[in-house]
């Protein structure tokens, strides 16, 4: 007890553009309607041993479905070898390693990291160390950067049902920079600060994908009972909650563990108790029984009062196991009567015969998996009793953490023989230094002097991680003021109207047209409306009358018509023209015409 809390972070940042090992776009992901069905088999690493996480997954015997998207090719389907590493993202990774004061490796050597939860069609993730031994300065001292890796992102999980997991191929292969810190972080505030400092460096470079899950964190936590890896923490505020939760959880577990010593976990033995629930008032149980599932019950030796007490929450620990095998959770003696289960309890107790100090639980499952759940629960209780806590956990939105799988070991890595090693030579280092993100002040100064935009706009573009987007749009449109407006006003407006994130890939064709046809602000904004809301194609757009600006004599005769209906003045003219036509026009010109007419 009382061991020092040690926290390390793994920050995963998706990079936009092309995927890591093929020519597919990271953005634009429409489902093609094709589905691939696969199974994965655990294989041994180079030492000939099985990885514990892989063995565990094997016991779950799940199968996988992959929805094919238009940003995937044979590679994502695991039907061809990887192409060469995307040089653009490799340069960015080297650049970021330098920015984080890392040493850069001489040779980039890709590895296969076995992952058989189906999230990679190949059964492994390709990953390579780019930099190591770096650091960032924080208010609570220096935090070491143990490594920066450039890896493939995994598939996005869509759903899981009856042992079949469905994934989308859209995210598979998106370049992912993984920045791991040393366990130098001292508390939850410090963790948030460190994540912010590192995140900001990437954001300033403007390389991250613009998507809700573009930055994800894993938290490594320990307080003397082994390392717990908490996966997939999306928000900074959740980092705080997750660390606090885990601290509390490990504290009560260390207090409880001596009290559990010597318990005979072999008495945990599920039996079918469905007949007691034939007339149950529990809607959940009734509907599951109807669906052909069964109710199983068991004694929980020595756990009465520890399942859900003042401090102890062993119920959750067991529910986590049940959920991993497709069960909704458990109902246990510390919370019964409840959930509509009441009348059955007496008979249940008579049947299960819990002794003094024993708890009991019921669970809805099937005869096929209940044995696996029983074994997994016993194994878990044995570990918790011995306070062997290292494992992989997953975080909920509220910041509670849940058991996911054993920690994988070094066993799961072996060389990716299909990708030759890449020498990081002076040219590559030079290029990486050239693109390396500068300080915020330097960047603002650069945007102001180079592109003639205001200091305030420059700051907003930078803090939104839009540096690269700005440069790209400016290149396409050839007008830095318009590019600024697109980023700061037009896109947010479109996103508000469409209710979704608009990716830069979607914008490129329309901005290309804008540049080619020298559209001004009005035409561009009208075109965006028609494109994103009116769902017009680019071809339709450029042929459409809607985009022809109204001006000169045409505008003048419109104003004369309007004036006849009701006299026009500089105050009402703009809205009145707008109510008459959706075509673009220059307000300055309209005002001048009104002035000319009244003058």
């Amino acid at each position: 007890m009382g061991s020092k809390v040690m926290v390390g972070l793994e920050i995963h940042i998706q990079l936009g553009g092309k995927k890591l090992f093929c020519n597919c776009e990271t953005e634009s992901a429409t489902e093609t309607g094709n589905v691939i069905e696969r199974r994965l088999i655990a294989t041994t690493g180079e030492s000939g041993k099985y990885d514990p996480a892989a063995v565990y997954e094997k016991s779950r015997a799940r199968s996988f479905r992959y929805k094919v998207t238009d940003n995937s090719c044979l590679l994502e389907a695991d039907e061809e070898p990887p192409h060469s590493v995307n040089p653009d993202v490799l340069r960015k990774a080297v650049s970021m390693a330098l920015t984080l004061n890392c040493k850069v490796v001489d040779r980039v050597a890709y590895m296969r990291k076995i992952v058989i939860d189906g999230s990679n069609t190949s059964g492994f993730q390709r990953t390579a160390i780019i930099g190591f031994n770096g650091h960032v300065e924080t208010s609570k001292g220096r935090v070491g950067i143990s490594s920066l890796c450039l890896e493939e992102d995994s598939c996005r999980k869509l759903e899981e049902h009856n042992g079949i997991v469905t994934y989308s191929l859209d995210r598979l292969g998106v370049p992912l920079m993984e920045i791991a810190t040393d366990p130098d972080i001292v508390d939850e505030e410090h963790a948030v600060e460190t994540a912010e400092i590192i995140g900001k460096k990437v954001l300033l470079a403007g390389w991250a994908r613009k998507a809700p899950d573009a930055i994800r964190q894993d938290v490594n936590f320990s307080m003397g009972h082994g390392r717990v890896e908490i996966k997939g923490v999306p928000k900074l505020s959740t980092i705080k909650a997750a660390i606090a939760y885990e601290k509390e959880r490990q504290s009560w577990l260390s207090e409880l563990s001596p009290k559990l010593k010597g318990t005979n976990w072999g008495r945990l033995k599920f039996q079918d108790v469905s007949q007691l629930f034939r007339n149950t008032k529990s809607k959940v149980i009734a509907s599951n029984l109807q669906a052909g599932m069964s109710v199983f019950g068991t004694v929980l030796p020595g756990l009465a009062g520890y399942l859900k007490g003042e401090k102890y929450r062993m119920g959750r620990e067991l529910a986590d196991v049940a959920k991993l095998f497709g069960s909704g959770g458990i109902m246990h003696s510390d919370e019964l009567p409840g959930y509509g289960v009441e009348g059955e309890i007496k008979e249940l107790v008579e049947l299960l015969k819990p002794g003094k100090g024993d708890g009991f639980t019921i669970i809805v499952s099937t005869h096929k998996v209940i044995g696996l759940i029983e074994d997994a629960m016993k194994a878990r209780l044995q570990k918790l009793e011995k306070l062997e806590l290292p494992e992989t956990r997953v975080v909920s939105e509220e910041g509670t953490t849940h058991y996911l799988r054993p920690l994988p070991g070094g066993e799961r890595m072996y060389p990716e023989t299909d990708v030759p090693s890449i020498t990081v030579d002076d040219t590559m280092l030079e290029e990486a230094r050239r693109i390396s993100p500068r300080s915020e002040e330097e960047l603002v100064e650069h945007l102001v002097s180079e592109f003639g935009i205001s200091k305030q706009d420059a700051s907003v573009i930078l803090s939104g991680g839009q540096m690269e987007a700005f440069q790209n749009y400016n290149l396409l449109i050839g007008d830095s003021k318009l590019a600024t407006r697109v980023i700061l006003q037009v896109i947010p407006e479109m996103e508000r109207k469409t209710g979704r994130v608009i990716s830069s890939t979607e914008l490129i064709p329309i901005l290309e047209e804008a540049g080619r046809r020298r559209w001004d602000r009005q035409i561009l904004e009208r075109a965006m409306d028609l494109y994103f809301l009116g769902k017009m194609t680019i071809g339709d757009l450029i042929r459409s009358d809607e985009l022809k600006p109204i001006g000169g004599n045409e505008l003048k005769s419109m104003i004369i018509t309007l004036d006849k209906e009701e006299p026009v003045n500089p105050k009402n003219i703009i809205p009145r023209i707008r109510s008459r036509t959706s075509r673009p026009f220059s307000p300055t010109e309209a005002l001048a015409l009104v002035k000319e007419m009244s003058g």
Partner: protein
Amino acid sequence: MVTANYNEKGEHFHLNKLETGTLMDFTYKGAKMKGVLVSRSEGNLNIKLLSGYNLLVPVNSISDIKAVETIAQHEGTEEKNLILEQGPKKVAFIGTGGTIASRVDYITGAVKPVLNPGFLRESVSNLSKFTLDISLLEAVLSENITPEDWILFARTVKDKLSKNQGAVILHGTDTMSYTASALSFMFQSLSGPLVLIGSQRSSDRPSSDAFLNLEAGLEFASSNFGEVGIAMHQNTSDNAVALHRGVRARKMHSSRRDAFRTIGGHPMGKYENGSVTISPDARALSDETVLLDKLETSVALVYFHPGLTADDFAAITERKRATVIMGTGLGHTGTRLYSVIKGIVERGDHVLMTTQCLFGGVNMNVYSTGRELLKLGVTPLSNMLPEVAMIKAMHVLANYPEEEFSKIMHSNLRGEIVDREFLWEAK
């Protein structure tokens, strides 16, 4: 910088003396690290760090090396011949190499063959139904296979079929259809199914297609037909395996799981949801396995193309007993080859015509070019696949009287000619 390197006994040593398998502390770019030396190549050391990552470093870039211990290297156990008794169905299991029998050699990074009972038990889900009579021949990459190997495979199969109800051959996919064709012709009859199995993803990968192909191959080999087939994924999903007739199968994609196709027809069998279906037109089993194991290898296969000169063609076909041309379209070559073709026929050797379209057959009566070639003595081979025609010629030249050559080439010995082609073809 002066570097001091010590072995586990505390003695100084030279970097070149560092043995693979040594767990060591070392310094790289100022960072202290620990890892096992896995291999050395081209001036680099490949070091496996405790995290599992391999670090590839130039030899002279690490310093302060202190050897901690030497870790025994894992050796894949492999026995050449054994009986793996699990269940009642007896199937001969013949390994010849290829991806399906391969795992990555972590020392060299190359793919090396590993087949051991433990691996089979772990990964082939229906193994409990079978007793495998395993014999591992010397592993060859399938691109290195020659007709001599076909004869060795055939003799092994004949021997094994006398003791088992069927046989599977694990084979590299690159030339698997050539071997299947050769075995098809060499066995006049078979007392059990002979199934070639390959895989497109090596079995060290969790996603390998080897597992399902092996599962299906064993089921096919214990079912009821007397032909040579190839068992490979029917589509990209892990849910069905097609059995292709050896003389109609072709690898049509370099990397996909469903690379193999039955050209011009339907597969002759299918394994899906744990059960086998075999087409009624598959040949029946025979009481006896009859092997004609002679081959005449002096046969050329020539791909005609606009740049092919008469001289090149003459050079390739010189002294060949038979030449199979992959002609254009319905079976044509440029007129510039006519004189060479005429010469070949006049010296008593054979010129056979197939189509480089692969789908469809030759018909040399439609265009004048075809009719000219027929007049020169070219033998059209209908829709026989070019490689199959070549192998058939090797077989016929070695085992039948010379005067019967054309007649036998025209007759449909093993289903190598599809007599009815349809507009729609099942995958």
